[in-house]
């Protein structure tokens, strides 16, 4: 099965070569859902905070992007960021129309890490309340408008 082979390879890379700095594999018991923790290192607005990312894979991975959200539970919160909704949904083009099958879990983590690192002001997206009320469970079902690429 193509999905499991690919994920096996990604998992082995993460375990053997190690995760990128600031990223830790928390849970990867199956090939449906993984959880990784994410810290933004250096002098950023998120210094000292720790977030968790949940990756959901289906059979078409990596042809289609994984469903990636920030975990929101007792332990973790979604980061306050103009592209991250309070329910953990992320508005990032690489998780949508700019996804490429050569991208990996680790590449997505690094992109999101740098998205947080370059943030200049901690605030929610302007339409947060409205979106969260009606958001579908799977963020990939949302039709995102990618407003700006500079944050």
């Amino acid at each position, binding site marked *: 099965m193509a999905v499991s082979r*690919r994920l096996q*390879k990604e998992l082995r890379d993460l375990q053997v070569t190690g995760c990128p700095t600031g990223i830790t594999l928390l849970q990867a018991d199956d090939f449906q859902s993984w959880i990784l923790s994410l810290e933004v290192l250096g002098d950023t607005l998120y210094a000292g905070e720790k977030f968790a990312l949940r990756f959901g894979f289906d059979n078409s991975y*990596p*042809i289609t992007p994984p469903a990636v959200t920030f975990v929101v539970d007792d332990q973790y919160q979604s980061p306050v960021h103009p592209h991250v909704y309070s329910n953990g949904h992320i508005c990032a083009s690489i998780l949508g129309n700019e996804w*490429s*099958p050569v991208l990996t879990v680790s590449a997505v983590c690094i992109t999101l890490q*740098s998205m947080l690192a370059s943030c200049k002001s901690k605030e929610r997206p302007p339409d947060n309340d409205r979106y969260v009320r009606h958001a579908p469970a799977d963020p990939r079902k949302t039709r995102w408008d990618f407003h700006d690429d500079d944050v």
Partner: protein
Amino acid sequence: MSSDNEYSDQDYYDDEDEDVLLDDAEDESASEMDVDAFDTDYRLSAKGNRKIYEVEYESLSQGDIEKLMKDDVDNVSGIFGVDEDTASLLLRHFEWNKEKLIEKFMDNAAAVNAAAGLSVPEKPHPDRSQSSGVRRSTRQNSADKVKTSSKTKSIIERISPPVEERFVCPICFDDSQTEYLSLSCDHKFCTDCWNAYIASKIKTEAEQWITCMGEDCKIVAPNAFIRKSLKNDSKSWQRFQELLVRHFVSCNQSLKYCPYPSCTYTVSCPSASSKSSLTQIVPIVVCGQSPTHKFCFGCNIDDDHRPVVCGVARLWMQKCQDDSETANWIKSNTKECSKCQSTIEKNGGCNHMTCKKCKYEFCWVCMGPWSEHGTAWYSCNRYDEKASIDARDAQSKSRASLERYLHYYNRWANHEQSAKLSVELYAKTEKKMEEMQMSSDLTWIEVQFMKKAADEVFKCRMTLKWTYAMAYYLDSGNQKELYEDNQRDLERAVEELSELIEQPLDPEVVPSLRQKVTDKTVYVQKRNEIVLEDTAKGFLEGRWSWNVPVEGFD
């Protein structure tokens, strides 16, 4: 340099002429496609009996459009000396605007090739072409492995010779794979991954512009590559062809894809291709797939909205969506504040009202100011006081506009409702026709007059329906009066005919009924023609003026 350009231009125009001649000879539709053909006369000989409220149009099948596309592709590939797939990509990138493509291509072919996803843009340091920016360089790992020299220009994909050095597809990591494909950018992936990727792009994203799977790679897969990658998946290939046709159609103002589900026909209607023409004609067309595939070329209203033009019909639909039911409710349940005209619903309490918005205090019963009510708090006996009468006058004025809307809306809705009931009418009519055959000596052919009458009633109700939408927005004056005279004559005739065919059947009078119905049907037909023709003529002459600003009319 300049003489070079001139020569090429000349070349191109010559080609064009040839094209037109050819088109004329073998295919009328092709010449209709020319953007400039709009106001030239060689296009179509008038179809003789076309009515003034009908438009000239032509229905094209998917094959017809493919032929038009091929003509353009051949033309471009001839001029530039490139293969068909390259020409197709160039044209698609320029949204099938041949003139623009030729101009830009002559100007800077390399830039055009790069923008159209044909070649990797030339950079001073090709080695670093992919690793710009912090974010990107961090996720290079996988892309690096497949990146080799990226300076090739050829569009032909390469098939790597089977496993010379051990190459693993960076997507599926399946090391049992032996066949790889890459586009001109040399990003190699196994054929299974290409297959899954391209099929998913076509099926789930309905995309005809399919880029390489490499990250940030803008190279686009040419048709031959897609065909090869899809292997035996003829369904996806077919869908891809359809997507190409749809893209072509959407790039051409004088073409429109039939909106009916899973229909693959296109209608060409050059006379309705410009926005300004939509203030003069109502381009109702029917595609060649089925006579029920009737739609408006100019707008998205799902109805034959003749005689009224798209702009006005749209205003009306918008208003109906916003207003109709709500308006009824507001009318029966609310009053307006006599000072600021806010609409107020009284849902309990005494008659002493204080407007939430402007804080004006008034009496709900007489609508006069509360200050004059003294201590008579719970009953109002001041109905005839001057202040109260004034307040109610103002109120009735604002109600009048609502009344006016409802007047038109109710008539509109009535005709729509009757048209919806036409299924029943047809069933009843059919029964009557059978009865007639039994009770009189009329044959099946001879009782067809009933069906014809029912058809006509249905048709005219559709016309009448939209005449009310138009009348609502028509500026009052002589023109409107004449218009409403025609409308009234048609309406009366339709109601009479409708009554004739719906009344219970009396075997004694069948012959006289037949005469009456036949006569009336002819009359109704004539009245309908008059309404449609006169309104259409009015649009052409710019005779109608509106009581609100309408898009396109100034």
